[in-house]
């Protein structure tokens, strides 16, 4: 059957489909993507804030117990992981924003934010790897170093040369 003969057959079949309204309007798609962007961005913000909160508590505990540099490095390592995960969520929201056709101004802002977040993610990953190696290197050293912070003195642990803990008769 020739192409010319197909026309009268196909046109009545395709006409209703071509004339049908959009399955999903652009406004609805924009609203759905906007909602997804807000959800993902919020998840990133929650992860970052949670990491900062946990890090703050662990820093204070490490400071009061005077656990030494290693404790601070371990806390920084944990905080860095939280920040990296939060950054991943924020980068995902940046990618989602490109799904809807933005203006040039929005593209410029999006590019700047995504570039900053990507650079941060890259350097943060490098710092995390370096600190992880540092912690692993010191893992074999003495873990029972006597502590001399106020909480440690309260618990009866002191550093060498600072006097013996109270005798427990």
């Amino acid at each position: 059957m020739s192409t010319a003969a197909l026309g009268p057959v196909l046109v009545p079949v395709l006409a209703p489909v071509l004339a049908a309204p959009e399955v999903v309007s652009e406004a609805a798609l924009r609203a759905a993507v906007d909602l997804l962007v807000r959800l993902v961005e919020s998840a990133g913000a929650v992860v970052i804030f949670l990491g900062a909160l946990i890090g703050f508590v662990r820093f204070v505990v490490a400071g009061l117990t005077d656990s030494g540099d290693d404790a601070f490095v371990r806390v920084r390592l944990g905080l860095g992981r939280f920040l990296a995960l939060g950054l991943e969520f924020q980068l995902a929201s940046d990618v989602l924003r490109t799904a809807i056709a933005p203006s040039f101004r929005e593209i410029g802002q999006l590019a700047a934010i995504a570039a900053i977040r990507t650079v941060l993610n890259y350097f943060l990953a490098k710092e995390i790897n370096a600190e992880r190696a540092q912690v692993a290197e010191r893992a074999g050293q003495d873990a029972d170093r006597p502590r001399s912070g106020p909480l440690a003195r309260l618990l009866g642990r002191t550093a060498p040369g600072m006097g013996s803990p109270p005798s427990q008769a």
Partner: protein
Amino acid sequence: MEQLLQTGALLCTAAALVCGALALLVTRKFAMALAVLLDLLLAAGLLRLALPPTPQRLLTAASLVVVRRLAGVGLRDRSTAPPPAGPSTRPPA
């Protein structure tokens, strides 16, 4: 949402100052205190970056990235540099 993010960023900034001071008091090492301070300031900066972007916020975030890198490189160079040669303390024979 914006108010929550701004409050969270403010709390992270306050935590950065407290933890930085605590790290300096405990470890007596400026490098460690600065690292702790910058980490929590980074958290605050990331929260602010989730707010509607303004040129000032973008500039602040970019500046934070640069300062972190410069501080990290500078402190790393100081830690790997050979100790300065001082007068010998060995008693004379």
